[in-house]
């Protein structure tokens, strides 16, 4: 067994990774490294230039790059290694790293995965048609416009109406482009309703109950065909198509490792303190709940980092065993997804989750016969619902279920 090279290896330099590093640094840990595969740190905010960050952490709106710069000023001692990709995670705190000089292996006392999320692109959604150039995601759009100052198209259509879809709109406006339309499969936008005003102000029509049935163009995109309410078909001439939202965790490394995964979305299971099935690995941020706001990810990363500091200081003894949180119908995913006793005060947890479809009624957390918590909710798929401070008995599964209004 090789000796330990560093105390904590943090994978990913987005808000959650930076937060965890900051917390550990504050707790006195010096031998920690944040690994980032891009040439610049900052994760998604590094190319999100509109003022949608900072409200909760700094109490004022900031652009993504300013937000990251402000976060980095809080942790002057943290070491970042960019252009370094983690290619494998192995038991015993071992990471395989790729950089310009090839592969190397390191061992850390603890590893924190903060690898973020991305949008599901066209192929992952299995949208029919041809494969011309000009079909991208919001993340790519932001990098084209803000990082590379390049225009991929001039008359695009935005697919989706999540918050990030309106980010796409904002980004296009910055480049002086007015999209042809936004299209949405449901009867209302997925983001909060007032967002429609922004589209209206820009003169961009939103087409509801509409899906894409064909993508045309041999080399570059020429038009799409849509179907509304399952009957009315229309063609929309356009030279760009932006698939926005529909987030998925960037868990390539975790999913190929020894960690236990949620079978339906291949996200690593984490307990109430963000520890995975392997007690020396944590997973935080959008990688495990694609996708929440940057500030939320930062606050979560700070808590997770502080917990790891306690763990490494020997103040906590962690149970290897864990129990499951079972999701009832209509619940997309929960954080945490497992529970374990850490012999650190009375066991309790905060539970966050998303519903799969709009839901009005109550949510109940129970363990056997015992109801741990119950709350009435008015849930929308993109809205994160949180029930705080649920006490539980260790060693038994917990159920989360939706109870419809009658």
């Amino acid at each position, binding site marked *: 067994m090789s000796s330990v090279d560093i105390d904590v290896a943090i994978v990913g330099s987005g808000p959650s990774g930076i937060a965890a590093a900051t917390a550990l640094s504050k707790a006195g840990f010096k031998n920690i490294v944040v690994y980032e*595969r*891009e*040439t610049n740190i900052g994760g998604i905010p590094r190319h999100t230039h509109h003022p949608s960050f900072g409200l909760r952490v700094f109490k004022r709106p900031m652009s993504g790059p300013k937000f990251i710069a402000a976060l980095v000023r809080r942790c002057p001692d943290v070491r970042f290694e960019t*252009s370094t*990709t983690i*290619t494998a995670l192995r038991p015993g705190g071992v990471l395989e790293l*790729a*950089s*310009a*000089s*090839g*592969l190397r292996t390191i061992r850390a006392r603890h590893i924190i995965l903060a690898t973020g999320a*991305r*949008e*599901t*692109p*066209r*192929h*992952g959604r*299995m*949208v*029919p*048609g*041809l*494969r011309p*150039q000009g*079909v*991208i*995601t919001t*993340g*790519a759009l932001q*990098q*084209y416009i803000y*990082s*590379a100052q*390049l*225009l*991929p*198209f*001039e008359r695009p259509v935005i697919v989706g109406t999540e918050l990030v879809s309106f980010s796409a709109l904002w980004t296009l406006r910055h480049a002086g482009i007015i999209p042809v339309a936004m299209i949405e499969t449901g009867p209302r936008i997925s983001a909060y309703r007032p967002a429609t005003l922004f589209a209206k102000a820009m003169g961009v029509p939103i087409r509801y109950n509409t899906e894409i*049935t*064909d993508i045309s163009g*041999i*080399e*570059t995109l020429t038009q799409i065909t849509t179907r509304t309410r399952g009957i009315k078909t229309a063609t929309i001439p356009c030279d760009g198509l932006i698939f926005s939202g529909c987030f*998925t965790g960037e868990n*390539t490394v975790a*999913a*190929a490792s020894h960690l236990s995964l949620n*079978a*339906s979305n*291949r996200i690593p299971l984490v307990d109430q303190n963000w520890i995975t099935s392997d007690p020396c690995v944590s997973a935080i941020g959008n990688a495990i709940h694609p996708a929440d706001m940057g500030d939320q990810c930062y606050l979560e990363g700070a808590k997770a980092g502080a917990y790891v500091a306690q763990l490494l200081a020997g103040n906590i003894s962690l149970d290897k065993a864990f129990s499951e949180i079972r999701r009832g119908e209509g619940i997309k995913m929960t954080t945490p997804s497992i529970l374990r006793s850490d012999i650190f005060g009375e066991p309790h947890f905060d539970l966050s989750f998303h519903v799969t479809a709009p839901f009005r009624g109550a949510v109940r957390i129970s363990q056997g016969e015992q109801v741990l918590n119950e709350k009435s909710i008015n849930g929308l798929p993109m809205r994160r619902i949180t029930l705080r401070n649920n006490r539980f008995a260790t060693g038994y599964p917990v159920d989360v279920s939706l109870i419809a209004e009658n």
Partner: protein
Amino acid sequence: MSEARWDVIVIGGGVVGCAVTRRFALAGAKTLLLERGRDILSGASKANSAILHTGFDAPPGSLEVACMQAGYQEYLDIHTRLNLPVLKTAALVVAWTEEQLAQLDGIVSKAHENGVDDARQISRQDLLGRETGLSTTALGAVEVPREYVIDPWSAPLAYLKQAVRAGAGYQFDTEVKSGAFDGEYWHLDTGQQRISGRLVINCTGTNGDNIEQICRKPGFEIRPRKGQFLVYDKSASALINSIILPVPTATTKGVVLTKTIFGNLLLGPTAEEQQDRNIATVEREMLDGLIATGIEMLPGLAGHSVTATYAGLRPATQFKDYQISAEPGKNWIGVNGIRSTGLTAALGIAAHVQRLCGETYSDLANFGPAAAAEWPVMPVLAEHEKRAYQQGDGTEIVCHCERVTRGEIEAALDESDVPARSLGGLRRRTRVMMGRCNGFYCSARVAELTQGRISPPLAGHEKDQS
């Protein structure tokens, strides 16, 4: 340019055209490849199952099986020198019904008749022991140990590169529209150019009967058959060990499950007759049907995400066998109807065409002194081999899903034999943007790296033109 006179003009830069160009260039012929697309592999050759077939189930005695087996052997003979990969998976023809089980015997004897002596039936227990992910409804299988997986894009590129080093030329964005034979030379017209050569070899796939008209009445009709595919994320590839083939029916080889050389899992193809020669769309209903079939065979597939969907057109004709013939007195060879086995057979077809040329046109038999063969070394793209990022080529990874380095991208753009000049060409040469994120992380960076170097550009095209 119109002055240039070639010995051989190959029309069509699919895998067959590339292999034919290589063969004639190495034989000393001044050979030119013409391709209407922006790069080689703009037709059927860019979308196939990438299996190196033994020919175990081909019609015995056919030209197809002869070319497949010769092509198979030549590929194995030359692949290490070109640094082309082989993934030695073996194939299992799986029976899912009693009726299919009863057919396995016949499959084994046909394989033996075709000289594939090591094909043998294995029991249900052996099958499920080897393939633990397979649905337990499987009843038995025929094992074909020497069916392998290769890289469908690097192979033809290597053939063309080797031809170029032996003095061959190539021209993309060049569509042959008509031509005339003056008794000694063909003069092909592309609309912009007249290109002259002594021998024309038609390797135009789904356009084969149209091009054939330039010389003669084609004795066949192209009936394009579309195949749609799904590429699953790399996480799915461990679900199988061997290529899982169905028991073929009279009309189709059926839906295959195979690893790709790049570490993904491939499911497909469908087989749909269609009219259009060039356009192959994917359709949701067919993909959903494929997925259902895939999950029925391999239940574990259900949790895995799809990286890519694509469709290709097989240049089938009304005949089962290849349609390869030389027109006496007219210096014209048609290479047509290379249905779904062209990747395997290409090198064998090329040798066959060279023989046919010698037999038919005695004056063309010897072009000149054979060229000294140079062996281009292809970059490593296979997942099971040591990739550039693992070696450390001194540059950063640009495409994170496929782990493509900046050095690899620059090399594909800068190389002198057949550099990438389109996004498709760059993707196939490097794997860039081929992964699960479809360019979420890297497309803007790739746009920067390729600015002014590929057509159409990834971005900024309106501005560039003004």
